[in-house]
């Protein structure tokens, strides 16, 4: 008897664990807690299928257990045979047809959900860009590269793959940011997902499923958040050594906050006044400008980064973002002060913080990730002072909500 009873628990374990999963509260990537329309559609579909699957599983395992209990013998003896049934066509046809019918039903729901997932609606909203009101069909170009995400906002143009051309050489955008995508809540945001090097995958579980970023191509995708909030994501296509540290967030805002965000991002970087920051800016021009762009500092000479992907995060509004380095580090401490420690560690030796392939490379091999530039502690400190001036500090709530561990 004992063995049969024990056999019940694998199945139970799974059911139980699914329940537990549903209750987990700290799971920021949980797919079972949809916060947007697409994710909810998916979740509904899955719920239904899970029930079907659960029933099938209980039936199959139940029958096994039942027979293990009923028909068990400990040894055979020569003339004790059960009825020798060789089959039963009607029965077998039945259990060909019934699963087929179940699957057909599932198929219908799947196709409905699939269509919903691939439709986009026309939902232009009014935003103010450079002081003039513009009708904007929310659309963000999402570009993956080893190992961070860039977001590009074009407010005026009709953003199409043709207009964008080569992902490695995209036309200048109104706003370029990285790590955190800002969106207006309650709106459907269309995405064009692409990559500058290998395949990545863009995934915000609470808002929608994922979509691969394929070099050379723009894949359409979308997402929407019901309410303002912060939603975490993780690159899910294996993309090299720091794949696990390629994360991202979506920050959904009220329309007003979003407008405010646009305004900040459209303002060029202010020239620093603080002495350390001035030195930092000089150090930036000397050390960092070959890769990073700061609007108002090196935008006249900048032609792309000397990295394999030809890109590095745009630092113009660095201080307005609350995470950096592919969404794994906090820009600000819990108390709202600049996270100098992590920033210093990053600039001192990025590979020590996040594995990359940027140091000790042969001639003509472009780095993947940010190299160790061998800067003195003093320069590092100056650079941080300068970085702090780049953009306004976000609100305390945002800092708290976007905090990563």
């Amino acid at each position, binding site marked *: 008897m004992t*063995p049969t009873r*024990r*056999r019940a*628990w*694998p199945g139970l*374990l799974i059911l139980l664990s699914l329940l*537990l999963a549903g209750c987990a509260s700290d799971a*920021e*990537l949980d*797919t079972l807690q949809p916060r947007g329309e697409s994710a909810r559609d998916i979740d509904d*579909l*899955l719920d239904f*299928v899970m029930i079907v*699957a659960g029933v099938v*599983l209980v039936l*199959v395992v139940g*029958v*096994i257990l039942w*027979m293990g209990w009923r*028909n068990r*013998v400990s040894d055979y003896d020569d003339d*004790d*045979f059960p*009825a*020798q*049934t060789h089959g*039963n066509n009607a*029965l*077998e046809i039945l259990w060909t047809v019934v699963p*087929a019918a179940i*699957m057909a039903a*599932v198929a219908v729901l*799947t*196709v409905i959900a699939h*269509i919903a*997932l691939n439709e986009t609606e026309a939902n232009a909203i009014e935003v103010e860009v450079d002081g003039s009101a513009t009708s904007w069909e929310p659309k963000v170009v999402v570009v993956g590269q080893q190992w961070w995400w860039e977001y590009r906002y074009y407010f005026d143009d009709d953003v199409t793959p043709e207009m964008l051309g080569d992902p*490695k050489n995209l036309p200048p955008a109104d706003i370029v940011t990285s790590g955190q995508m800002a969106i207006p809540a309650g709106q459907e945001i269309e995405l064009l*997902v692409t990559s500058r*090097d290998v*395949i990545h995958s863009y995934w915000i*579980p609470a808002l929608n*499923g*994922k*979509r*691969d970023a*394929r070099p*050379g*191509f723009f894949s359409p995708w979308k997402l929407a958040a019901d309410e303002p909030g912060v939603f975490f994501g*993780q*690159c*899910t*296509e*294996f993309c*090299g*050594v*720091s794949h*696990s540290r390629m994360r991202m967030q979506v920050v959904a805002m009220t329309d007003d906050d979003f407008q405010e965000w646009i305004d900040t991002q459209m303002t060029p970087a202010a020239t620093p006044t603080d002495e350390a920051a001035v030195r930092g800016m000089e150090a930036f021009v000397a050390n960092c400008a070959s890769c990073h762009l700061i609007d108002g500092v090196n935008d006249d000479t900048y032609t792309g980064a000397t990295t*394999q992907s030809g890109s590095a995060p745009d630092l113009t509004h660095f201080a307005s973002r609350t995470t950096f380095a592919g969404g794994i580090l906090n820009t600000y401490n819990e108390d709202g002060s600049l996270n100098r420690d992590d920033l210093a560690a990053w600039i001192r030796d990025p590979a020590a913080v996040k*594995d990359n392939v940027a140091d000790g490379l042969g001639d003509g091999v472009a780095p993947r990730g940010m190299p160790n530039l061998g800067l003195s502690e003093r320069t590092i400190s100056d650079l941080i002072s300068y970085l702090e001036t780049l953009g306004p500090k976000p609100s305390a709530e945002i800092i708290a909500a976007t905090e990563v*561990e």
Partner: protein
Amino acid sequence: MAIIEQPLAIETSEAQLAERPLGSLTRPQGGNGWRDWLSSVDHKRIGIMYGVAAMFFFLVGGAEALLIRTQLAFPEQGFLSAQIYNEIYTMHGLTMVFLFVMPLAAAFANYLIPLQIGARDVAFPRLNALSFWVWLSGAVFINSSWLLGGGGADCGWFCYSPNSGVTFSPTHGVDFYAVGLLIIGTASIVSSLNLIVTVLNMRAPGMSLFRMPVLTWMLLVTQFLLAFALPVIVVALFLLLFDRVFDSQFFDPDAGADPLLWQHLFWIFGHPEVYIIILPSFGIISEIIPTFSRKPIFGYSFMVFSGIAIGFMGWGVWAHHMFVSGIGPISVAAFSLSTMFIAVPTGVKILNWLATMWGGKIKFTTAMLFSVGTVAMFTIGGLSGVTHALAPADTQQTDTYYIVAHFHYVIFGGGVLGLMGGAYFWWPKIFGHMLNERRGKIHFWLMIIGMNLTFGPMHVLGLQGMSRRIDTYSAGFGFDLWNLVATIGAYTIGLGVCYFLYNAWVSKREAKHLPAPGPDPWDARSLEWMVPSPTPEHNFDVIPTVESQDEWWYRKYGYDDNHKVVRIATVEEAAQKGDADDVHLPSPSFWPLVIAVGMPLIGYGVIFNLWLCVIGGILVAGSIYAWVLEPVDDPDAGHGHDDHHDDDGGDDPAMVGAGATDEGEGS
């Protein structure tokens, strides 16, 4: 070791040797020493060698799995560096799939197909040896990358481009991946052709296709899948290799190439591959469940046809691995639908097994426990597979641990457990003694508890958003607990595996004091049980004439007037004695081994220095010709020539054709 002490029918006399003073160039003769394993063309020995090698690589792949699990036991661990982790999980996947499950299935196929269809050997015995040695050389080759290639491949087992290009994976790991899989693939194609011809051509009189055991059927379907799927990955691997070694432009997006090409080619192969993994196990439990239910298999022809249907449908679903790759909504919908319906033939099988047990007299031997466990665990994995088949749902699931859970349930729960059951079932037939049943059951429970502990929580992890192929994770995502549980589970499986080895070892020692199991210890149903255990080298004294499905059972039992089963013959009466000494057997040969040495040389040559290719190429070409010039049947072997059915095709340059062509592809 147990294996090497196999008694053999052929004994060489010194006088014969003296007749042919050709020194080392003398054709090897059968014998008992270790050298005779190197030149053996006996399908049983080759099967055993496949099995031993596969178990070895199971330990390697399992050790890699344990490293993975150790690294992931707690958040933010630095036990393995990210780079090493990536190499380890890639090699884990490759090792388990290509160096463990496939060869273990090949072990069963080699050992059992000829016996189940009543043949003396496979159609091309030397080619069979070739397949094994070349496979082994490929296996060693691909693992030699740890030492010679600057680390293992680090691109994942499906090695998507462009991440697999030299720019993004500059060590030689991926080169070893490409060349190693080419060598292994060549070996598997050759072996599949051989086994298909064996089944089609070498059956005993009366053994019509629809009297063949279900296992033979499933293995036949598997061989067809191999034969047709492997050429596709061969193409993909060549393109990858050319890109990496000769700078061609197949996967460089900057040059206008499309990374999806690799994905399509890989998965056109890859999906049939997963059925290659599962179908042998389906076949095995289709032998075990009837035996221990004391009933014939329920719905034989439905079982066979659903196996064939799975084989065919498996070709139309590959893009379900690419639902988020950007193949366009129409393709996604089409492949989503086709995938769902593959549940139907698979379901037929599950339900037919249940129906076989229904009303039966079920004896829970270890083999039976494993088989029933397979049915249950595979169902769990199959059902999660169905949830992936819904393309919208899969956009949430793909590349998460939910997928990892799915495929370990089907592969480990479905494939490996079934193969383990097969090991317990046929152990006495192969080695002449039983595996201890009591320890076997402990082994079973360790495995099943371990696997549910390991892979069950992965469902939760995946749905909670844990990506696969991440070398570490942060605390605070809710991943901590279940990862720890999974790690504990993995070590439990590890314990189970060790316990199995212990059981094998001790059972062998104990066997000396136990009665021999006899030809038919389980009261089983198919032809292999009518020959002594272990199987004599010549298999059958007299090739049996087959009159029904489950022939061996019908030689033991009949029906009385009330349609009640009665015994009509004891095993001793019905079984063969295994003492025929005038059976002609194919002669051993060294050339397969030599060719297998040449192949990796060519491989290293492609990677390091083309001149090595020349040496390897000469070795391979020379051995192929030497093989062809060597008569199939050694005229000096001095044995009675009776009803010889075996033909090696050796003296046919045609086989050079087949061999040489593969070779051309390999260089």
